[in-house]
């Protein structure tokens, strides 16, 4: 029962290192919430869009809000953040109909498994637009 709040714009910082490590970029998942969650008045366009995935537990999509960590630890065994997020929705590469719906409604509903309600796309159709930034590969796993 998950919804993913996704950044719809780029935040920027003048320092490139800080920009990569700290700033949210368009397509970065920000938080995940259950289906029943209602969003605040600033949690929508133009700053965010919402990807709704009814029937999927929050725990299954929580990995998408993890940061990308450095490959090695510092001298005290601590991993520093390399990039603000490990995963990014390639929003600008989505089919035109999906892009238009996000621009108009600020949300997209994804059908997974035996979900019988209305949906815009299936997970199989959408997951290849979710890129793991560390490897440059797109998601292939099922939910």
């Amino acid at each position: 029962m998950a919804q993913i709040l996704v950044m719809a714009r780029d935040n920027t910082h003048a320092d490139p290192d800080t920009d990569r490590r700290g700033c949210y970029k368009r397509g970065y998942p920000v938080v995940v919430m259950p289906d029943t969650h209602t969003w605040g008045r600033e949690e929508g366009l133009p700053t965010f869009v919402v990807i709704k995935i009814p029937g999927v537990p929050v725990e299954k999509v929580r990995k998408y809000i993890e940061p990308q960590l450095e490959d090695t630890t510092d001298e005290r065994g601590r991993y520093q953040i390399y990039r603000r997020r490990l995963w990014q929705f390639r929003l600008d590469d989505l089919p035109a109909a999906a892009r238009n719906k996000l621009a108009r409604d600020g949300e997209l509903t994804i059908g997974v498994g035996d979900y019988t309600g209305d949906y815009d796309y299936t997970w199989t159709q959408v997951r290849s637009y979710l890129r793991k930034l560390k490897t440059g590969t797109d998601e292939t796993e099922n939910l």
Partner: protein
Amino acid sequence: MATEVVKIVDPDNGSGTDYTSLSAWEAGQQQDLVTNDRIAVAKCRCTGGTADTTAVTISGWTTDLTHYIKIWTDPAEGYRHEGKWQTGNKYRISIDDDAGIILEEFDIRLDGLQVEITNVENSGRTAIRNWADSWPSTGETYITNCIVKGVTDTKDYNHEGIGLYDASSTGGSGVKFFIANCVAYNFRSIEPWQWAAGFDHDCESGSSSAYFYNCTAHNCDHGFIGTNTKVTNCIANDCTSGKDFYLYAGSWISGSGYNATDLSDANSGAPGSNNRYEQTFSFVDADNGDFHLQASDTGAKGYGLNLYNDSYYAFQNDIDGQDRGGSGAQWDIGADECVVSLPPQLLTPQRSVQHMLVR
């Protein structure tokens, strides 16, 4: 004068809510506060009893001493804790196997927050921390009136209540942390780790400083770890697997003292002078996170230093906003000031004089 931009954070999405998590607020408000001449304020509420369960990292902003980030609960609104760990409609961040608030900015004020780590499976599960690998030359972080709660028997030696780790060669002496009226408890790890701590400020190579004032650490491996740190009016209790006060490197800042511990002088490591050793503290309900001092306490009550006019960080209230008694009062040690609501003639002679002369 910078403009305050106040946004409401409420996991229950009550009336007037802008964001339903602090993490979303941070993403939505992340900006160059200096160029925009702003102070970014997150006013946190909890109108329906739901905890904020998403870890938040404060990073990627541009700030300075007058264009800062403030995250707080307004005591006038009723969503702030009352000096002890509380659920119900008290705003709290509750995190499963992650850090609670990660600070990578240096001009920040956290006030009146509760942060708990409910489960630790991996390392680095701190309630509030700044371990940024690049530190500026200046910055002021204030963490006041906050309660952080951990878990015991972890294998995470980095499990800390408030952890500040200055390993940067760029960290200047203008970087300061002021931690006052805070409580940290249950940050413990098992052998052979046992480096969990309530409050920690380590300088590997930086020159930042930290000021732990009127804080209470309970049931941690170490109560307070410091380097170039001033520790005054702090209680360390039941921190027996480490030291109550542990000097990580270098020296404590001059003027530390007036701390209280249940350990002996030799074992506690308490810095400075006027410390109290082998004390028994009478907390209201330590097992349930209530570290208010009972009126009958003889370990901490009335033995602190008055910081009303402190040259580094002056303040006058305790963790639940009660007046510590003005510039002439003898303060209590720890996060709470035991304020007895009795007429002056029924107070102890010392308190009676304070009451009549100061209040």
